[in-house]
């Protein structure tokens, strides 16, 4: 039997009291300076509009989960936050996305330095066909770091933060493709950490993993929230309830509701949200 969502939330509250004490506005959006803010964001693939008028505030040093049925635009939205959609032919955007108050779609923005600050972990783990060490060291290296000792320190600290150091410390020279699925995904997280980002975007990072590996990745996300702003897309509501402080519900390319996770799952304000989390569709 799966625990009910409210059980999950109650357990989380008891075990891990929220580290912040910001209140909520009437709309359920957090107060204070948001890390990322989108205003009236519309997104198009050619003629087809994929996102409609999304305005959202992502709070600093928190985990924000994006949930919704598949095809609702949550992954597309995630990819607008570090401009990964730029590489898709015919992608077009309206409205603004601000990182620390700077519009990242301004023409003079350098996407390379943007993506260094806003890292990303993908649904399918995608380690480079290189050694474990070279995978983690890739980001610092392309940024111009050549000092072998310093690279070693970064690799070690990132692997430790990704809770992978114990398992791979003795085989840093082995091919990353030889690791298990769960290890590969944590390696990808470590690799993303090595560029020292402020924001981590995660696109269903655990969907291809077995339950044990999923638990480890979730623990890791919960740990990382102290230092990073994390936005995670998931189709698994249990997971959203377990790891996130805030949850946004997307449906048919629109943001239906965003609130503190416990609020959203226990007292949703919108009919669609309630239908979704009670399993009436999706």
């Amino acid at each position, binding site marked *: 039997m799966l625990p009910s969502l409210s059980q999950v939330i109650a357990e989380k509250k008891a075990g891990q009291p929220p580290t912040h004490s910001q209140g909520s506005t009437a709309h359920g959006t957090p107060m204070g300076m948001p890390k990322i803010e989108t205003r009236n964001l519309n997104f198009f693939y050619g003629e087809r509009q994929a996102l409609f008028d999304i305005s959202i505030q992502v709070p600093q040093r928190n985990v924000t989960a994006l949930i919704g049925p598949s095809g609702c635009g949550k992954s597309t939205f995630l990819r607008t936050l*570090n401009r*990964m959609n730029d*590489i898709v*032919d015919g992608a077009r955007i309206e409205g603004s996305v601000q990182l620390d108050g700077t519009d990242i779609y301004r023409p003079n923005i350098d996407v*390379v*330095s943007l*993506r*260094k600050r806003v*890292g*990303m972990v*993908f649904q*399918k783990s*995608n*380690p*480079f*066909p*290189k050694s474990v060490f070279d995978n983690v060291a*890739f*980001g610092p290296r*392309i*940024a111009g770091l050549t000092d072998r000792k310093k690279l070693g320190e970064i690799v070690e600290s990132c692997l430790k933060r990704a809770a992978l150091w114990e398992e791979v410390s003795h085989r840093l020279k082995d091919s990353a493709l030889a690791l298990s699925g769960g290890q590969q995904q944590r390696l*990808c997280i470590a*690799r*993303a950490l*090595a*560029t020292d980002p402020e924001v981590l*975007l995660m696109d269903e990072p655990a969907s291809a993993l077995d339950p044990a590996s999923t638990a480890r990745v979730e623990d890791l996300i919960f740990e990382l929230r102290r230092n990073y702003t994390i936005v995670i897309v998931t189709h698994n509501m249990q997971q959203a309830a377990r790891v996130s402080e805030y949850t946004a519900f997307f449906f048919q390319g629109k943001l239906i509701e965003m609130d503190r996770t416990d609020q959203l799952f226990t007292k949703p304000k919108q009919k669609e949200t309630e239908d979704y989390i009670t399993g009436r569709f999706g």
Partner: protein
Amino acid sequence: MTSATLSAAERPSLQKRWSLTTLKEQCIRLVLFCCALLSVATTAGIILVLFSETVLFFSQVSVFSFFGDTVWQPQSQDNPRFGIWPLACGTFLVAGIAGLIGMPLGLLSALYLSEYASERSRSYLKPTLEVLAGIPSIVYGYFALVFLTPYVLQPIFENVFGIEVGGFNVLSAGIVVGIMIVPTISSLSEDVLRSVPRGLREAGLALGSTKFDVSVRIVLPAALSGIMAAFLLALSRAVGETMAVTIAAGSQPDLSLNVFRSIETMTAYIVMVSLGEASVGSIEYRSLYVVAMSLFLITLAMNIVARFILRRYRNVYQ
């Protein structure tokens, strides 16, 4: 009456039995099988023909002088000598220059097509590049002899560097063969580069890579073995290239690395003997088969290694 109302005895039996239809099916299958077998027969024929004459050749000329002698003068009446090195040297010199020209051009254009060009420009650039592969080699030879040597190579090297460039020279042949193999390299390499999963490119970009970092540090290393295979296949084409080399580099067997002089490749030698009056069964005529055998073995080895690498590469990212 429909079949459903037939009694058990009247219904067509499902048992296999001989009829004209099944006989016809079997015959067709057999004929088609023979068509496929013809390719094996071709290979067998090539090996048989080359091998039998090669054996006869080596009964007259020792293997040691074939691989040990450095002079190739089969026509000589009083002192015919059959050292393969001058011909091998010519062949590899042309293939080497062709590689130096064709490999960078082919690889860079493959990278351009797969990583940089928009879908639209790719749709016309790629077929236009393939045109280069469709032009007969005699045209390349003519171009080298009539345009490249007198209007480009001779002015540059004679006026600027003071080096004498012959009307027939290895350099012009190597350059045109290099251009000829560009489409082979670029289209094979492009396939290989495109088969590198999109996820790796996205991971690279998400880590703050420029497109250059993605192309050179991620995609290229991931595709390296496949690209090596493309190089090998293209070089084996350069080794087997005949008419362009015969026209542009002439027929002067010479063991030297001077690229401004005439030389003779294995293929050119075969053509020159065929044009001449060597009678069937003579030692000169048999030398044709030996040279062809060497050529066949060299290109076969390159092809087999390349196919092997490609197959292993495809297993990594299927």
